[in-house]
């Protein structure tokens, strides 16, 4: 069912439409909220408030973004105001390539070649689980961008707007997050590559 049909049913008070949206988005919303507020219990409240706001605001949905982006925008705004009340601060971030290159800009230690040994099944089964494990250890801002871009699959421009950050800043955060995940995947395989 397309976004407009779903919203029309929601406006008409259709419980089935609501449940279908909940089933589709609740896990992703909860995961992002937790990354933003740092507590599962607070995240659950934020998500519940988000659903109420979705119901109340369904009449105002204009379809300028996808319904999914619209719902995630409501969540981010609510999680932001909750997080700022709790004064969460972002840890200072190092450069993901510190020490990787010699003074001439060439790899000091070349990457261990393993990409060709990975097949689709390893990625889907094993690596996806490793991503879930490492996500909570990423700095909050990196986690948020990675969840929205690579896990939820929202477009870059919508994510920048949704998080109120510049495209450049979003790209830096995303790249750092991907580099950490890449490193974790490599570590998780131990010496299996050599």
């Amino acid at each position: 069912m397309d976004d407009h049909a779903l919203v029309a049913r929601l406006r008409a008070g259709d419980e089935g439409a609501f449940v279908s949206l909940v089933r589709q988005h609740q896990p992703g919303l909860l995961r992002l909220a937790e990354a933003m507020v740092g507590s599962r219990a607070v995240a659950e409240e934020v998500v519940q408030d988000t659903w109420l706001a979705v119901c109340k605001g369904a009449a105002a949905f204009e379809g300028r973004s996808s319904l999914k982006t619209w719902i995630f925008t409501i969540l981010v705004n609510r999680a932001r105001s909750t997080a700022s009340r709790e004064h969460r601060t972002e840890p200072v971030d190092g450069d993901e390539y510190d020490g990787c290159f010699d003074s001439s800009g060439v790899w000091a230690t070349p990457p261990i070649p393993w990409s060709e040994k990975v097949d689709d099944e390893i990625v889907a089964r094993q690596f996806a689980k490793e991503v879930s494990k490492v996500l909570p250890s990423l700095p909050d801002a990196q986690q948020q961008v990675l969840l929205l871009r690579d896990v939820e699959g929202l477009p870059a421009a919508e994510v920048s707007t949704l998080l109120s950050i510049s495209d450049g800043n979003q790209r830096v955060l995303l790249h750092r997050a991907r580099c950490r995940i890449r490193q974790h995947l490599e570590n998780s395989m131990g010496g299996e590559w050599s």
Partner: protein
Amino acid sequence: MMWWKKRRAIVCEQAVRLMAGYLDGVLPDADRARLEAHLSGCPHCSEHLAQLRIAILAAGHVQPDDLPEEAVDDLVEVFRRWQQH
């Protein structure tokens, strides 16, 4: 006299810093060409890019957490209360 100046080749450190924009498809043509030229001769940077692509693919396969039925029921309750409001 040549009216254009050949752009210098980039080193690995510059190459990896262009990869984020490259993966998003937003690099200016000149940068994209320089990165691709570097990649064609550097197995290490090509490997790094391939590994980043695997990281992206893996994130796309993250399964949603199980959604307990009670959680759905609780939210349906919220929905019903809102409707009666």
